[in-house]
Structures are given as C-alpha cells and as structure tokens.
C-alpha cells in the first residue's frame, strides 16, 4: 500500500501496477477455474502453472527477486512436462456470433479499434504511457460491448479471456522468459564474446557494414530458429550493440527495424510452422512449401529496403 500512497512514484507507474494486478488476477482466475474443472485432464499441473504465473504478474513487485525466480522455475515444470491442459470451454457457436452480428452490425468495429486508439492517445498526449492507455481502452471497450448487448455480463468477458489464455497455454510466459534470457546473456558477457568474434570479420567502426551484418544475421538466425523474438535478443546484444549502436546509431531505428528484418526470415522458413506450414494443411495445399514460395520475393525486397532505410536514417 505504501507504494500506491508514495507521492514520489509517478501516477503512470502506479496505474501500470494496477494493470499488472488485474492481469495477474485474470491469470489466477484461469488457474483456479482449471483446478476445479473436472473436464481438465491435468488439473494440478494446469493450476500450478497459471497460479504461479498469476502471483508473479500481480504481486511480483513486492516479492523478493529470488522468490520470483523460484516461482518462475516452478511454473516451467508443468509446462515442460506437458501438464498444462485445456479444460471445459464455451466456444461461441456460429449461430451465436451471427445472431450477435445481426443485432450489433458494423458497430462492433468501434470497441475493436478502441484499444489501439487509446494506446496512441495516451502515448502522445499524456505522460502516463501507452500501456495505461491500453488499460483505459479495454475498460471503454468492455463498456461499449455491455451497452450493445445485455448478454455481455462481466462473467462473459472473464470466461472468454480464460478460454483464449488456455488456448495459448504455457507459451504465454515465453516473451518474459525470452527477455530474461537476454538479461542473463548480457550479465554473463555473451555479447562481448560474440562481438570479439564478429570483430575479426567486420571492421570495428564501419557502421554500415555493421548494419548489413546485423540485418542479414537477424534474417538468417530467424530462419534457423523460426522465431524472430528468440533471434533479436542474441543479435542485438552480440552485434547490434557493439557494432552499430556503440558508434552512435539511433537505437530506436536499429533495434526496431532489426526485428522486422528478422520477420523477413520468418517468411522464408518452414521452422515458423504456425505461419508457413499450418496454413498449407488448413487450405489443403499440395506443395508443403507453397506458402513460403509465395513469400520469398516480398521478403527479399523488404530486407533490402530495410537495410537501406537503416543506413540512410542511422
């Protein structure tokens, strides 16, 4: 409570903490719902995962960091053992969503776009931050949906978020885990080692050469791993930092375009199965590489464009 009363803490920071608490409570709800769900084939494992994640999300700020670390290790166990499962779910039927569309119509786009609009407004016109804007946008969006239809009770929103969260499953913790891996790489000095290795090939101080290696490295690394998020931490710590940013290039430009340079790799690899292989099956295509073949040309154009963009604006 002292945190929320402390006048030295910015309002945006306090509101963000409220957002984390709500997020944690939604996650805790997912855990408790599944512990009590007789249709879930793995009630204990599912419950442990979501409840420990919920505790770290909601109350992590007040928990000693080593305890947070232990809780994170605990939540990985059921997920690695494949014990986080989906329970009973109430998916909307086609009749239900068609009936709702007939009633609400195209107005449904308003609450759909609200969140993004509030994120932009808050980022530009307040000092509370984009994420607080997302939080406010969600409240407005929920309110609009409640006005549109009396069937949209608070419970419906909670149950629907549990349904989506359970579908995503343990991968929900992946972004935070990847970021933590980046922090561990940095702390262990991995970046320095890569930098000294690449330094043998790329002349130190040639920022343009550094950008080319960084962008193509992102693309190739992403193709191997199938995941640009996994590649960006390694590449930015190892190459982007020491070979490009260290010489005064704009971190906003290099860091962000580096990620989308990686996306060019995602378009070209069967490793990104969700995007490139699953659709082949869903559309009954004959050629397993049929989606990738249609993405190679745009991907190559985009990598060239992004390299030029980075060199021009650095």
């Amino acid at each position: 409570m002292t945190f929320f009363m402390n006048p030295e803490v910015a309002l945006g920071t306090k509101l963000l903490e409220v957002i984390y608490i709500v997020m944690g409570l939604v996650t805790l709800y997912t855990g408790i719902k599944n512990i009590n769900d007789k249709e879930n084939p793995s009630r204990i494992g599912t419950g442990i995962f979501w409840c420990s994640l919920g505790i770290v999300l909601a109350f992590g700020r007040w928990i000693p960091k080593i305890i947070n670390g232990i809780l994170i290790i605990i939540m990985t166990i059921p997920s690695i053992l494949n014990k986080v499962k989906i329970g009973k779910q109430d998916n909307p039927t086609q009749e239900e969503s068609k009936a709702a569309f007939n009633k609400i119509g195209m107005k449904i786009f308003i609450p759909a776009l609200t969140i993004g609009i509030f994120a932009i407004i808050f980022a530009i016109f307040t000092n509370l931050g984009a994420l607080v804007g997302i939080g406010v946008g969600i409240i407005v969006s929920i309110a609009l949906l409640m006005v549109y239809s009396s069937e949209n009770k608070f419970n419906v929103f909670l149950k629907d978020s549990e349904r989506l969260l359970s579908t995503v499953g343990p991968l929900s913790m992946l972004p935070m885990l990847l970021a933590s891996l980046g922090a561990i790489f940095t702390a262990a000095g991995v970046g320095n080692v890569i930098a000294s290795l690449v330094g043998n090939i790329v002349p130190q101080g040639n920022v343009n050469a550094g950008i080319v290696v960084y962008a193509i490295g992102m693309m190739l690394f992403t193709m191997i791993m199938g995941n640009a998020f996994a590649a960006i931490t390694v590449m930015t710590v190892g190459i982007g930092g020491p070979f490009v940013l260290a010489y005064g290039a704009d971190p906003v430009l290099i860091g962000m375009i580096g990620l989308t340079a990686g996306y060019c790799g995602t378009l070209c690899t069967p490793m990104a199965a969700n995007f490139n292989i699953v659709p082949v099956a869903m559309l009954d295509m004959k050629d397993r590489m049929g989606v990738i073949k249609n993405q190679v040309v745009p991907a190559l154009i985009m990598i060239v464009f992004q390299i030029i963009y980075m060199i021009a604006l650095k």
Partner: protein
Amino acid sequence: MDLIKLLGILIVVIGFALKKDSILIILCAAIVTALVGGLGITGLLEILGESFVSNRSMAIFILIMLVTGTLERNGLKEAAANLIGKVKGASPGKVIGAYGVMRGIFAAFNVSFGGVAGFVRPIIMPMATGAIEASGKEVNEDYLEEIKGMSSGMENIAWFFCQVLFVGGGGGLLVQSTLASLGYNVELIDLVKVEIPVGIIAVIVAIVYYNLKDKKLNKKYYGSQREEEKA
C-alpha cells in the same frame, strides 16, 4: 577465449531447429549460460526473477484478451466478412490485395479475424474463386494452389509488418527491453513511428507482387482460351 559462454546460444539454435519445447530450451540456455558465465544458481534466480518482473508489460496481451474473445462472440468476424464482401467483380489478385489493406489497417490496432482457418479459408478463398467463376472460367487446380499460397502470404506479410504499428505490441516491448539491457531507454511510440514506412511499403510490395503474379497466372491458364474466343 570465452567461447564456452556461447554454449547457451548453441542450445537455443539447436533446440529451436530440432523443434524441442521452447520453454525447455530457454530454461536450459539460461541455466547453462548462468553457470558457465559465473553467475551461479543464486545469480540465475535473482536475474530471472528481476528481469521477468520488469518485463511484465509483455503480458499485456492477457489484459487485451478480456475483450478479444467477447468481440469474436459478438460477431467481429461476420462484420469483417461483410466489409471485405463489398469488393465486387474483382480478380483473385484484387481480392487478395483488398484483404491485405484491411488486414494491415486492423493489424495496427492488434485486431485479427481468425487467421487462415477462421478467415482466409471460409471467406477469402470463396471470394477469390468466385471472382474467377464470375468471369465464366473454370477454376484451374494449379491456379487455385497459387491463390491459396498468395492469400496466406498476404495474411502473414500484412500482419507481421503492420502489427508492429500497434503501440504496446509484443515486438516493440521486446525491443524496448532488449535495448534497456544494453543501457538505451526508448519509448514505445517512437518504436512504432520508425516502423510506419516499413509497414506501408511491405503491404504495397505484397499487393503489387501478388497482382502481377495473378495477372501472369491468369494469362497462363486462360490466356489461350480468350484468344480462341476472339477467333
């Protein structure tokens, strides 16, 4: 040489390439790197706990899910189908292009309509094949295969390069935290601004490419037929 410190990266690359469990790979890489890097178990747990908590913003999608599922329940997909259905009398290339524009714009607001299974298959494919049939031609099987590939390509390209325009999206948050670990503090909105030209160019490139390709395919499969009609 400190080459042993790269063991963690090797684990990540090999692990993902062999399609092992993502969480297992990252955990192994984290533990191995912490040990060979001299951080020890306590150091590992502390950095893990600290970094995870300071990166909770990346879980903002959990909050957004409070409305995503209910929007779907309230007919969002049907509304999107209605919107794209306004494109009439077009070629498959134009249908795919129109979908690219729509998907790009909505991606910037983090709104998706159900992916390949939920939207491309039930809505875009019938519209594209309908466009061929409307001009009195039969749908060639190889042409259909290419249309499927192009639709999925449009779906991916518009989403990848435009979803980074959503302020508070996962990509920007990860870049922000990666840069912070190197000592550079950047704002989410600035990360979005720098991507605006990239997002627009990506959608344009895809639309132009697929339309040129569609024209070529159309000529390949129906071109001779048209000449016969003329004769």
